């Protein structure tokens, strides 16, 4: 996998794409959640602070939140995902991205885990 993907301790993946950061959840997180039945996305244009609850995701079992990994602005959300939440289980690292955000300083991404570090983190 490309080196420009990073992972948070909240089991999100962050991928740089055209000066934006694309955010989704990892396969590990998707498996833990179980069958996802509902995804509520933020409004495009929302300014968020790190750790704000920006996405609500619900499985048949429970509700959980996806936190903003960094300060920034939500510039695009994955609308089709809200119509087909099951995609989170089918393709968590691909089609099932949640939002793209613009951040001030791309170097902030360096603080997150690499793929190898994340693999160690989840054991």
């Amino acid at each position, binding site marked *: 996998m490309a080196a420009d993907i990073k992972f948070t301790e909240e089991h999100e993946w962050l991928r740089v794409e055209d000066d934006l950061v694309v955010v989704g959840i990892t396969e590990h997180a998707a498996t833990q959640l*179980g069958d996802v*039945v509902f995804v509520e996305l933020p409004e495009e244009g929302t300014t968020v602070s790190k750790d704000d609850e920006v996405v609500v995701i*619900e499985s048949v*079992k429970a509700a959980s939140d996806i936190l903003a990994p960094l300060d920034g602005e939500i510039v695009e959300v994955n609308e089709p995902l*809200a119509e087909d*939440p099951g995609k989170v289980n089918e393709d968590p690292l691909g089609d099932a991205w949640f939002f793209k955000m613009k951040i001030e300083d791309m170097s902030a991404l360096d603080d997150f885990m690499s793929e190898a570090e994340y693999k160690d983190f989840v054991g």
Partner: protein
Amino acid sequence: MTELKQTPLYDFHVSHGAKMVPFAGYEMPVQYPLGVMKEHLHTRAAAGLFDVSHMGQVMLTSPYGYDKLALALESLVPVDVLGLKPGRQRYGIFTNDTGGILDDLMISNAGNGLFLVVNAACKTEDIAHLNAMLPDHVEITEITDRALLALQGPLAETALSRLVPQVTELKFMDSVRITVDEVEWWISRSGYTGEDGFEISIPAGMAVEISEKLVAMEEVELIGLGARDSLRLEAGLCLYGHDIDTSTSPVEGNIAWALQKVRRTGGAREGGFPGADRILSELHNGAERKRVGLLPQGRAPMREGTPLFASEDSSRQIGEITSGGFGPSVEAPVAMGYLPTELSKGGTEVFAELRGKRRPVTVAPMPFRNSTYKR
């Protein structure tokens, strides 16, 4: 914190990949590798096997025979026990002096006595209640040497009849004892999923062997507590401690159908159960609030504790969701909760407050999906 108990099938669950969680003092399977959604859908399409051995199995007997025994139990439940024929079962509730519900249960006329199945979380209190309230001639025995399984779904009969051919003759709410190869099976044609199916009490020592035989059948998958909850929710069935409890009367809880005429005002054995004054009065005059089915508009599941309001901007909360989630067969969120009786008619629109936003919810008849009991 007391040690969690295990059912006779604990190792069996683990060996089949179950995720075990604490539930009502037991370590129970919440799901298997199939996952809640597929387990739910499989039960509706074929057959699902559930371990419900954590539930309480209780035998009541009396040297004075069935009628005296039935009348004794009728002093604690507002249902017709005397009229229950041998080999038949019915739903009942234990009420308290203020007309609330202590537990819900299944009552079977086992010929030699009454066989009760009560909720796991209530069984200690239920047995203490029986001991305190029933006359001395009634012997109360908790059955601890038998496991309890549920096999539910349209192909449950096909599967179970390979082991116990006689089950094809059973109708909904029949409850019988059948001996096969010297093993006594206590089988009722009932369950808590809205599907045809069976609840099966077997000697604890046979539980693994019988479960392995069932799960080896093509039709049968193991089903955990997660799907058990979504199945019963779609079926519109109450979960004790959530949808009904000591603060809800059977009329409020919308389970007045469980109170036969003979125990109601003007019936031959009118009243004579705890809280009869309030319950009989509510049967006649109605209650102020009622448990209803609720269909959230949109896709957001609404769970237990979600407050309900009459309008988008009213400040006064009028009710609350007591059970809710996503209904895999309905393919939409479903819920139940309490509303003032004047707002309990099907089609009424109310609002639920979810994450600070009011969202419309429609009062809907239950079950959310037609039940397929074999009557």
